[in-house]
């Protein structure tokens, strides 16, 4: 019985972290299991989002309100993680844009966005390079 209640307490104390872990692992799974480069980028954004949620849930204080000063409100949530994540979101979209631009370039050069096909191309080009040098 006591074990049960302590487990429940842990669960309600930490469920935000567990959600973050689940999301993060979804993103991680997509990144390592999928060969499609766009899907990898989607996985990365998922991963990033889970980190955002981690920070924001850390900043939350139960019973507190959004950090904008107003009359009659005593306690506010912690504004510092909000600031960090606000800028991080905009930076993440910029980096995502760069990644997507790279993918477009890859598509134009290789005519595919699948990782193993790209590697096959690379290997083939490398071999033909070697052959040319031997000659």
């Amino acid at each position, binding site marked *: 019985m006591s074990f049960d209640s302590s487990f429940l307490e842990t669960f309600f104390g*930490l469920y935000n972290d567990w959600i973050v872990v689940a999301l*993060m692992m979804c993103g991680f799974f997509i990144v390592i299991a999928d060969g499609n480069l766009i899907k990898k980028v989607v996985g990365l954004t998922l991963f990033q*989002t889970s980190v955002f949620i981690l920070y924001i849930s850390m900043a939350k204080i139960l019973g507190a309100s959004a*950090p*904008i000063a107003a009359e009659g409100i005593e306690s506010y949530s912690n*504004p510092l993680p909000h600031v960090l994540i606000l*800028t991080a979101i905009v930076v993440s*979209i910029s980096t995502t844009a760069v990644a997507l631009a790279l993918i477009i370039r890859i598509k134009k050069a290789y005519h595919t*966005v699948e990782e193993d096909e790209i590697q096959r191309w690379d290997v083939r*080009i490398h071999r033909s390079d070697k052959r040319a040098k031997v000659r």
Partner: protein
Amino acid sequence: MLSGIYGLLSATLFVVLDAVDVAFTEAAVGAGISTLLMLTTLSITGRYEIQRPKIQSQIALVLTTITGALLIYGTLDMPYFGSTDSPANAHVADYYLSNALGQTGVPNFVTAVLASYRGYDTFGELVVIFTAGVSVLALLGTVSDKTMSDDHQPMHQHLILRVTSKMLIPVIMVFGLYVQFHGDFGPGGGFQAGVIFAAAIILYCMLFGLGVAKEVISLGMVRFCAALGVLLYGAVGVVSMLKGEAFLNYSVLASDALVGQHIGIIVIELGVGITVAAVMISVFFTFTGSAEEDDSAFDASSPSDATESNSKQVSQ
């Protein structure tokens, strides 16, 4: 896959809702711009995908499960959700919460911390965004200037959509300005306003074609604005240095410290807004430009890059 992105991000917004400013940014960036960029890329690369052997994903699944279990084991030591005395809430946050209103005169704590206390940090982020915009231009920008003069209007079938959007675009822009300058008092600020402003232009570009949109706001001007915003931010810092204080200390900008803070925050938020909007617009223009160039290449049935890569394999 398409809606997956969208639905997930909107769900994120709900989770994040206790942080107003962050929710705002996430709504504008995560649900809006990032989906747009993904869609553009997807329309260029095509939705083709090969099936992979099952075993590979099973290995990945095992790996992620192990990592996840380890992480959950690690969370057992974390402070409980919403607790007041957790380390994250203990140190500098109290200082901000009790002093920000008196020192900066800005009721929105997030804006106060973002623009005033952590001004260096935000400047760095802004430079990162600018750099990202520059590198996208460096990667794809060379191709997009050729397709300036196409009268290819992608959605001319949708008359109702076009009329509605024409009505909405000015409203969106005014809303963007409101968010920009109301950021001191409510949720909002330069980052969000920049994204909203960019969204209005992007909407126009999607409905009326890239050529028309470029006549409204030319690529050169967008590039100029991207640099202008960063310079504006830096200039505020330099001016405060010239007045004998530290870099980005706004208190010396006017005779009264509070007024100085106010001026400084408004100007740097403006700089942030201009740069973010310009970078987003230029990224979208570049992406769409390379998509349309792709189209015209295929229309002419002489895909130049295809022959190029063919020649690569033949010649070697």
